[in-house]
């Protein structure tokens, strides 16, 4: 037996911080590294007598996700209290949702969703070192700035079967949520956090194995590392004749190890009950229409559209779908360049993207119209594909007009006036030894002629035309 005989079954639970102006239940602005406890109020500090009020935009974002993923929107959604004592919850309960989440079902890509619910984020605990010792025991300091930040918890069905699939799907989710504009979805900054439920079963089995819950995998790399380590561990346990114990495991990025979160004798008993301080959320037709109207085209749909409507390579299409700003830029350029074929336009856009390290295309000095003009110049042999790249480099640096750059820098393709034929003849005459080798059957030696020709024409010559002329003049 080996790992290959086992099928991993993985479900993800993702928490995303919503990009609202204010917290989930109070008017405090969201915090981005401010001084500790400067973004708090009676509500998010849990002061006696304070009451929560639901942020309308958080609900809107919830509905937006629900519409985007084809979820069933609850006709009547209720908040509930999840009770547990820990200083990261100012009230020692978290306002979350329990049996009536805002969204149920739906899917993204090949993965079905179980639910999406809204809740409040926990505060940050900073553990003090030696200096923070009080009477010999370690201490922590609580900063409630993050406490109460709106969160969406997205729970998938166990439809994922490898760490790579988990990573790819999470990336799709990330891009989709970013495009929906509901979150910054930055794993390193903690605005996207993923837990994984992992189990394994013998290939062919339909019954699910016992799952464990993996927490704290705060990067894509750690997510894969953690899942792979857990699959390996579970397979070893099962092959050793033991049983997997249902437990929560904490991934330690330092050691790459999974540690059991010891919960002592206390099996968590959250004592959920309907939050009496809040009233039901009943999404109206108007609220749902507003969400639908705000839906942008999502990556999966965009990739499909590129595949069917535009003649471009599959991986280019996927890239434009995942980076919708570049997708939009490409579409604008290709439309402006019509009826030219789209592939060369796509190639120029990809070239520009790599020159600016993937920065926002709007931030580059190059307009989609300039790309279209350049593509047209190549098509009409006003310049060569090679020189077009040089033009692009200048455009990316300085902006401006492709035609003007070509003229200024002498990057035009050579007109068909015999000039090139003369250069070819001259180079052939200057390199009799190379000619000898070519005639002796060494086709590769032709490169030794092309180089000097391109140099003499300062790159203006079309590579294909140069090859044709050499062959003709050497009567090959």
């Amino acid at each position, binding site marked *: 037996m080996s790992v290959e005989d086992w099928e991993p079954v993985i479900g993800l639970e993702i928490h995303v911080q919503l990009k609202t102006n204010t917290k989930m239940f109070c008017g405090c602005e969201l915090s981005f590294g401010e001084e500790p406890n400067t973004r708090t109020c009676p509500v998010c500090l849990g002061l006696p*007598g304070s*009451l929560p*009020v639901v942020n309308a935009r958080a609900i809107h974002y919830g509905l937006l996700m629900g519409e985007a993923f084809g979820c069933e929107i609850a006709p009547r959604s209720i908040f509930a209290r999840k009770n547990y004592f820990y200083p990261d919850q100012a009230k020692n309960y978290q306002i979350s949702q329990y049996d009536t989440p805002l969204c149920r079902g739906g899917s993204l890509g090949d993965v079905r969703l179980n639910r999406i619910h809204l809740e409040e984020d926990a505060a940050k605990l900073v553990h003090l070192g030696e200096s923070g010792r009080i009477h010999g*025991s370690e201490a922590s300091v*609580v900063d409630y700035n993050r406490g109460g930040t709106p969160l969406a918890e997205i729970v998938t069905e166990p439809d994922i079967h490898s760490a790579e699939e988990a990573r790819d799907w999470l990336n799709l989710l990330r891009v989709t949520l970013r495009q929906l504009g509901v979150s910054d979805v930055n794993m390193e900054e903690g605005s996207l956090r993923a837990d994984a439920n992992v189990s394994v079963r013998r290939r062919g089995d339909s019954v699910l194995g016992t799952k464990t819950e993996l927490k704290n995998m705060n990067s894509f790399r750690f997510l894969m590392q953690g899942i792979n380590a857990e699959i390996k561990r579970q397979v070893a346990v099962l092959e050793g004749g033991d049983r997997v114990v249902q437990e929560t495991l904490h991934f330690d990025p330092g050691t790459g190890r999974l540690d059991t979160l010891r919960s002592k004798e206390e099996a968590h*008993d959250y004592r959920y009950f309907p939050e009496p*301080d809040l009233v039901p959320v009943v999404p109206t037709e108007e609220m749902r229409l507003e969400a639908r109207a705000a839906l942008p085209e999502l990556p999966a749909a965009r990739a499909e559209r590129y595949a069917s409507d535009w003649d471009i390579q599959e991986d280019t299409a996927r890239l434009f779908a995942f980076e919708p700003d570049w997708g939009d830029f490409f579409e604008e350029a290709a439309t402006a360049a019509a009826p030219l074929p789209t592939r060369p336009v796509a190639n120029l856009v990809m070239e520009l993207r790599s020159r600016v390290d993937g920065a926002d295309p709007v931030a580059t000095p190059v307009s989609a119209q300039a790309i279209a003009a350049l593509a047209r110049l190549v098509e009409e042999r006003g310049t060569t594909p090679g020189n077009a790249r040089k033009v692009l480099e200048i455009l990316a640096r300085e902006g401006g007009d492709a035609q003007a750059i070509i003229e200024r820098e002498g990057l035009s393709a050579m007109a068909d006036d015999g000039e090139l034929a003369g250069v070819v003849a001259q180079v052939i005459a200057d390199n009799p030894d190379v000619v000898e080798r070519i005639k002796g059957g060494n086709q590769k030696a032709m490169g030794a002629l092309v180089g000097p020709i391109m140099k003499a024409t300062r790159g203006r010559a079309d590579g294909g035309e140069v090859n044709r002329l050499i062959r003709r003049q050497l009567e090959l």
Partner: protein
Amino acid sequence: MSELLELTAAQAIDAIRRGEVTSEAVWSAYRERAAADENNSYTWVARPEAPAVEERAPLAGVPVAVKDLFATEGIPSQAGSKILEDYRPPYTATAVERITGAGAPILGKTNQDEFAMGSSTEHSAYGPTLNPWDRTRVPGGSSGGSAAAVAAGNAPWAIGTDTGGSIRQPAALCGIVGMKPTYGAVSRFGMIAFASSLDQCGPFARDVTDTALLLGAMVGKDPRDSTSLGLPEPIGTPSATDLQGIRIGVPEELTGEGIEPGVQKAFEATLELAKELGATVEPTKLPHAPHALAAYYILAPAEASSNLARYDGVRYGLRAGADGDLLHMYTATREAGFGPEVKRRIMIGTYALSSGYYDAYYGRAQKVRTRIAEDFRTAWDSFDFIATPTSPTVAFELGAKLDDPLAMYLNDFCAVPMSLAGIPAISIPNGLADGLPTGFQLAGPAFSENRILDAAHALEQAIGFDGSKARQA
């Protein structure tokens, strides 16, 4: 006693308006009385200097006593608990803001059962409040400090909170008027929570007119309280002198058996008066009412167990056990900070919500609550109001029920059904039994505050209760 103190709040306002007396004089007279209060009604009294007030404002500077359960900025807000000893919040409750905004400055904070859990004001970390009619007896609770202060003439009026009778029952036991409005009529923002789905704040006053005036200053939708509602009409000045055409239902389940004879007698006498004023009085049924108290003692402690989780020694209030780990700090703080009744209710509520018991207790109690609300809705088809004695007993002796929680809980037998249904109810003094006041409760459908106040006004005139004895001391 100064004549000033014999004026009702409405009369004092009129006198101020007419220039016969200044608001400073009213303030000083009551401030002096409050500071000299011998019933332990107050846990904090304002400084002697009269605060600046706007005499043209609706309440003209007539000061108000505020139950310690309300958050008041910079002023101790301790909820009767040691765990909040000398806690001074950075904000003020909406209800208090509205009243002070209407021109009534805060005279003091009044004693109460800890976190409003109790019916005698004996469960206070700051000692029991005494009944001004008889200092060997309790004033009722949990808003006993507010009730005693008004009854003793040590406050012109006061506000309290009512979760399962905590305004009506002490009003009855102290011989004054107390009203619990429709749930949601007054904002709960800043009212330290006991049981959120039941807590409602309301006025105490010497008479029905003052009650209406103070209630009118408190009500209104508050964007900071999701469960608050706007009343369909403002609270008016009650003026009815008869009950022509009014139909009063008397539920079998909440009268007769279990009611002290003296209380029952006073209740029946008031029903006779109602008939004389033109009302029809008929027996009716609230079939689920006998189960209201049991349902209440699941729902309220369950919500309380969660609401009181925040008292943990981290952000405010008492901390103990800081020499140990976090768990030790939590348990030591809560052990030292909470009194026995609070602990008892936290235990009941935690158990009722715990895994495996939710459906049998909390879920079922919520269904009983539905049934009770339905009972009242059915009653409104035939009646304008439901009438019961407010409390089954008159004020009992200090310590009499402290060791028997179930006996203590039974005090709210007649008050709790209205709380579960969220409907308004008033208690007016309707006589004495063995020299101690009895209370008459009138409840109506949601938002019927004006009609209840009018009917109570007519009854009050006919009863002619004299509460001055309690103000003599």
